[in-house]
């Protein structure tokens, strides 16, 4: 996880295509400029970045299920709950499940755990649009491949 680059997912653990579900993992860095402000003397992973982590995990799920035909853009965060503080160095398990496959949009339910501890969960809505640039399509596919998503190969 590289907070400064919005690079929130370290590895795709498994894609359950038939169930419409993906599990990923990521480790919060021990040090980051983000922690200098959030918060001085008490570093915590910002809640908005936990939401971003769930959004990116959902995004890779949608990319895989749609065979990289469209780019999912986050457009709505519903009922997000930030249940536990996350300190630097924490190992996170992130899951995302497809709730609804609409026409040009998708809804996912995502959650983060740290060991047995529930960290966060949210229902997220994405608008799935044609890739606005071929470079983005290539970059997303390359990034997904690096994370271990076989569908990206």
């Amino acid at each position, binding site marked *: 996880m590289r907070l400064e680059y919005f690079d929130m997912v370290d590895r795709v653990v498994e894609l359950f295509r038939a169930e419409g579900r993906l599990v990923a993992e990521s480790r919060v860095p021990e040090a980051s400029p983000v922690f200098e402000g959030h918060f001085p003397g008490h570093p915590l992973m910002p809640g908005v970045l936990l939401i971003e982590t769930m959004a990116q995990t959902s995004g890779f799920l949608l990319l895989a299920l749609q065979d990289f035909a469209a780019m999912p853009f986050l457009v709505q965060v519903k009922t997000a709950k930030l249940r536990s503080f996350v300190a630097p160095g924490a190992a996170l398990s992130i899951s995302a499940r497809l709730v609804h496959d609409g*026409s*040009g949009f998708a809804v996912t339910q995502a959650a983060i755990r740290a060991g047995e501890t529930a960290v966060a969960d949210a229902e997220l809505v994405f608008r799935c649009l044609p890739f606005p640039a071929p470079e983005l399509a290539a970059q997303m596919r390359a990034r997904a491949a690096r994370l271990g998503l076989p569908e990206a190969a």
Partner: protein
Amino acid sequence: MPAILGASARIGVIAPGASPLCFPALESPAMDAAVFDRVAEIFAETGSIPREKITPEAHVIEDLGIDSLDFLDIVFALDKEFGIKIPVESWMQKVDKGEAKAEDFFVMKSLVARIGDLVAAKTPG
């Protein structure tokens, strides 16, 4: 933000200035009153629109003032309520290509009739 720009652009597509009365639906399937009432309730609840504004002749964008994100929410609610997948993308493509008028899909009576067709199509017999 690309998503927002894209969404805004799409609103433009489904909101041309023609009167609904000028362009009858491609087909004229009967509008089921019970389906209309349920669809109108979902529009009212999800879009925070006064129920009395939601008439069969109301245009989703021009008359009800629904923006793209609220419309997405409404489509999600309609999909769930009726167990269908409303093909909004396909409709927009037809409008983009000039194969149909926005009013063929996005005036309430047309929308309700098409939802009725989608529900009928998923239930054999």
